[in-house]
């Protein structure tokens, strides 16, 4: 399925000649495992509140292609609607939003740094309702440069929000280049641990590790406070000429490049 999700990403971004393929491809394995295997959710009966369901918030909204692909392919909306990505009057806006009522999306994101706070509030709401489902939130590693992330990290740690599971897509790349050159966010494990989080590092492009880490996170939920799944990924994973470089952060492939990319990705569940 991750291969099909990657095909969706390439085809969506190629069709509208805009969007963010790099981070989307890097997170394809994780998002596939989360939505198809791990989350307890009701794609056919979507509600904003999601009572007694696991919730997922995408904080780094620019990787919307991977989000839309897994939402469509788990049944939140018709798969054919992926073809409308970034077009006028689409529900699949460039960055995810609730504004057009797309099932599966509970908050707008795009301006970075806000998702962890929203997830803290949603985790609080679940605790108030004695709802023991989990709240997941995915952030970028460049996003860790935003101050609000640390306000929320401090709050979640201090209040032991043990139903909160944050994931950082740690691909080491941002728009202007490698994080190391732009502004290093080193030692994320130590930083989050100092804020009272349990940190689980893993390889986000190794499906066995992804599944094992998500299982461990669920097993440890409700125990020692919030958990961070520190996910090492490769930007552009699965398409050789996109791998490991920031150049494909926000650039669409041309016809030839798209054909090349698709030739590397098996069509397993049928293109939209």
């Amino acid at each position, binding site marked *: 399925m991750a291969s099909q999700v990657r095909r969706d990403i390439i085809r969506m971004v190629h069709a509208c000649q805009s969007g963010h393929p790099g981070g989307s491809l890097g997170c394809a394995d994780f998002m596939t495992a989360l939505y198809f295997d791990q989350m307890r959710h009701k794609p056919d009966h979507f509600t904003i509140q999601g009572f007694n369901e696991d919730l997922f918030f995408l904080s780094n909204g620019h990787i919307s292609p991977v989000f839309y692909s897994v939402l469509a392919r788990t049944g939140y909306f018709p798969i054919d609607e992926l073809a409308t990505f970034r077009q006028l009057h689409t529900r699949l806006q460039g960055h995810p939003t609730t504004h057009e009522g797309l099932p599966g999306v509970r908050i707008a994101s795009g301006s970075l740094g*806000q998702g962890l*706070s929203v997830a803290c509030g949603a985790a609080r709401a679940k605790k108030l309702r004695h709802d023991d489902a989990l709240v997941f939130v995915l952030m970028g590693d460049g996003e860790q440069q935003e101050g609000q992330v640390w306000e929320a990290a401090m709050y979640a740690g201090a209040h032991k929000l043990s139903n909160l599971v944050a994931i950082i897509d740690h691909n080491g790349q941002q728009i202007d280049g490698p994080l190391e050159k732009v502004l290093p966010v080193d030692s994320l494990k130590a930083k989050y641990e100092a804020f009272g989080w349990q940190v689980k590092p893993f390889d986000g492009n190794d499906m066995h590790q992804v599944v094992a880490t998500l299982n461990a996170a669920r097993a440890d939920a409700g125990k020692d406070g919030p958990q961070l799944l520190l996910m090492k990924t490769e930007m552009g994973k699965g398409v050789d000429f996109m791998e490991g470089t920031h150049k494909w952060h926000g650039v669409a492939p041309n016809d030839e490049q798209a054909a090349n990319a698709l030739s590397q990705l098996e069509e397993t569940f049928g293109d939209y």
Partner: protein
Amino acid sequence: MEINIINYQDTRSGFGAGIHALGKQNPHVVALCADLTGSLKMDAFARDFPERFFQTGIAEANMIGMAAGLAIGGFIPFTGTFANFSTGRVYDQIRQSVAYSGTNVKICASHAGLTLGEDGATHQILEDIGLMKMLPGMTVINPCDYNQTKAATMAIAAYEGPVYLRFGRPKVPNFIPDTTPFVIGKALMIAPGTDVSIFATGHLVWKAVEAQRILASSGIKAELINIHTIKPLDEAAVLASVKKTACVVTAEEHQMHGGLGDSIAQLLGRFHPAPIEMVAVRDKFGQSGTPEELLAVYGLETADIVAAAMKAIERKKGH
């Protein structure tokens, strides 16, 4: 409407009383505060409903985001901090996680305007109405006294959608009878008249009451209308009044750019042009001083409203 001073109270205490009453009435009402519980008069709510009160520390951006998350979870969150930190500091968080996302968050802001006094310009935000009213779908309310603030607090809990509720620090006349219903988006007629329309909001409504009385003693019948909801503006009430009086004064504790006067001028420009005078701050920052000193220095006193009314009437005659 019979207007008399009932007592002197701060509008923020009206908010505190309102949210405490809501706490008792509605188990879905939750409150968040960024280290200003006493200043926002949220102590009683925090004391009696501790499981529904979230102290976020000095982290306003996180507070707004958490409020959005609580709203997604089916609660009705009220955030509390000073008006400056409720708007300018967290504008992008409000724009994306509240307004654009359509989360049912009530942003409650105290110490708005010049009348917070001695703390000076860093805290005296005079741009917040403009910032908030520009956001699509945001309701903007600026009540005028204790009773109206309490009633507004209760009313916004029953309304589904993002709201900005603005109130202040000093003790001021409390004069709206507590039996007066608060209807979001519905202007409140305080005194009918035919010579000039005075549209006032917030603390300046009482100043406008005083001005209306002074004008009456000179034989000028000013119509005084309280615009507590700046957005959505009660366009029908404004147009009906100006069709009768043919000239206008607006009064608010806010910058002229982006405030109530700006909304009314825009409406009149489109549908019923008329001379308009604005009692508001003229593109300046505030400064330290007592509330009364500051209102005088920045031209927001009773006498300024009277002078504006005379000028508007003169301009009407010159047409």
